[in-house]
């Protein structure tokens, strides 16, 4: 009880100190212009303006795409700040030194003009910038700590716990074995001390002969049968695998992760595989498509510097040299397949054939791509005829049948649809 109370006391003291510290620092660094209103209404109205127009590029206390904003009315006059917010290019063109330095520091990136903001909007915005959402450094530190923990923990039981559980189980089983052995030896000794008939004595003291068991017919037959069955299974599986590349997962020139891009970041497949709805091939993106994001994103998980994998894109772009990705899915020339026909017209999800792409670190061939596999799907899949006039007559002709209109009904099983 005593320790608990004292702990709370310490924390409280630290907290107050931290707040005091921040307050002192705050008053020193961010001596906002006294003309900026500190009223709650102004701050909350300013926050709305900020969220709608500023927040994707600016933060209050940290550099982002643009500079940290708090303290602007200390660094410059309120009039200057308003002029810059409304039309920064005008201020820069007027030869203002501070504005030009800023423009240069942030890579000559233009801020769009905000001529639609009224003077009240600007006043409120400045109130929010100077007084809104002040971050308590102690709270920030603890929030940061929590954030780290959350990102570290995954769902389910972590693997290290599983290993520990397995090890403990094995130890317990071994202990039970030892205890059983001890019990047997104790019992044998006890029985041997008794006066027993000759038969029982022999039974008690008989030895377990492993060699005899190994040489017995029954054992040999069982083992041979198991070996033959295993060998036969591998051989038959192998023979069925001839010409099927299911599971093929080649190392690519860049360790690109679909799990990160399509899974975590939820980028749509079509963003990079641009041909999938308009042509036969889904297309592997050219480096300029990578550069749409990777001009700015140079490393993973917010690390400093350039990741060696992302550097490979820059090298490809700088030297105008294609990235030689290794093709994973390949149909033989005897079969024709068209992506747009399946994805655009058939409205089939990419994952139906390619499997859980959004979970793959390295892409592997999920489906067998055999003819049986194609035909199976053509037998079961209904035509996406809704809102597609092309199918109206076919649907009408098919209306007598009990079953829905399926791919097989419009020629999906005919040889010449794919083999020509």
């Amino acid at each position, binding site marked *: 009880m005593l320790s608990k109370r004292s702990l709370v006391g310490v924390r409280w003291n630290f907290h107050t100190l931290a707040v005091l510290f921040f307050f002192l620092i705050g008053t020193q660094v961010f001596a906002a212009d006294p003309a900026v209103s500190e009223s709650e209404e102004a701050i909350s109205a300013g926050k709305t303006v900020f969220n709608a127009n500023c927040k994707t590029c600016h933060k209050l206390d940290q550099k982002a795409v643009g500079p940290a904003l708090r303290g602007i009315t200390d660094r410059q006059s309120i009039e200057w700040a308003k002029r810059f917010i409304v039309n920064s290019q005008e201020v820069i063109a007027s030869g203002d030194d501070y504005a030009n330095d800023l423009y240069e520091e942030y890579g000559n990136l233009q801020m769009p003009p905000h001529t639609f903001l009224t003077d009240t909007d600007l006043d409120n915005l400045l109130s929010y910038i100077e007084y809104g959402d002040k971050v308590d450094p102690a709270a920030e530190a603890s929030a940061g700590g929590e954030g780290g923990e959350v990102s570290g923990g995954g769902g389910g039981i972590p693997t290290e716990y599983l290993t520990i559980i397995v090890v403990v189980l094995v130890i317990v089983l071994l202990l039970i074995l030892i205890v059983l052995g001890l019990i047997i030896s104790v019992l044998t000794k006890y029985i041997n001390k008794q006066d027993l008939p000759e038969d029982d004595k022999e039974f008690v003291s008989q030895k377990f002969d492993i060699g005899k068991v190994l040489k017995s017919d029954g054992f040999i037959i069982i083992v041979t049968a198991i070996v033959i069955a295993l060998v036969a299974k591998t051989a038959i599986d192998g023979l069925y695998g001839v010409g099927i590349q299911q*599971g*093929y997962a080649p190392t690519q020139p860049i360790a690109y992760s679909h799990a990160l891009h399509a899974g975590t970041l939820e980028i749509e497949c079509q963003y990079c595989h641009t041909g999938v709805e308009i042509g036969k091939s889904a297309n592997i993106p050219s480096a300029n498509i990578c550069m749409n994001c990777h001009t700015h994103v140079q490393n993973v998980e917010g690390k400093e510097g350039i990741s060696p994998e992302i550097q490979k894109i820059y090298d490809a772009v700088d030297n105008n040299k294609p990235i030689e990705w290794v093709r994973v899915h390949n149909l033989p020339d005897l079969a024709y397949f068209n992506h747009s026909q399946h994805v655009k017209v058939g409205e089939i999800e990419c994952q139906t054939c390619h499997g859980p792409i959004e979970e793959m670190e390295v892409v592997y061939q999920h489906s067998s791509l055999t003819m049986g596999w194609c035909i199976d799907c053509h037998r079961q899949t209904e035509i996406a005829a809704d809102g597609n006039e092309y199918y109206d007559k076919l649907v009408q002709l098919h209306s007598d049948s009990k079953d829905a209109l399926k791919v097989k009904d419009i020629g999906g099983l005919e040889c010449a649809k794919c083999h020509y």
Partner: protein
Amino acid sequence: MKLVKTLSILGIVTAGIVLGACRAGGEDQGLEFAPQMYHSVAYEPLTQITDESQGDWLSNREDEKGEFYNSNIYNPHNMNMREPVENTVPRNKNGYLPYRLKAFELEEAALIENPIELSDEVLDEGETLYLQYCSSCHGAGGEGDGKAGLIIGGVANLKGGAYINLPEGHIFHVITKGKGRMGAHGSQITPESRWKIVHYVKQEIQKQ
């Protein structure tokens, strides 16, 4: 007798293991049933074999290269793809000519009218296209809160005052050529699709 027995057992096991290795997995493509069918004679998109010795063992090519060799020696990097002849003008099936404005010519771009007529169907397609090409940064609602956009930073809130009144031509131009931190998407999205996205952004996201 014993030797024969051992040999036959060993034989069966080896045969099993060898046949088992026909399967694909990892780096291994597995055994091919008809290699000449898997390795196209014609130039295929997204396939290029630059190693001249590949498929030596069944080759009867006149140039004495391997059967699987498939590269175009007349193209840069021996690629199979070829760029259009210089000074030719591509035209698509709707007769669209290439977009001529440069990235900085925003004022001229703003005057261009949307050639696609607005209809419910166009808006539907626009929505699909917007979700495919734009939402990862600009967010499904256009508020600049897409997951990839949060990492890139500086993504425009399409409902923000600086963007809400922009003319359609301006939006089309920025999709095509990029602006600020946004990259050029002209190579990814066809002009028709870009105009459909413009319709969707104007009508549904900005409600103009």
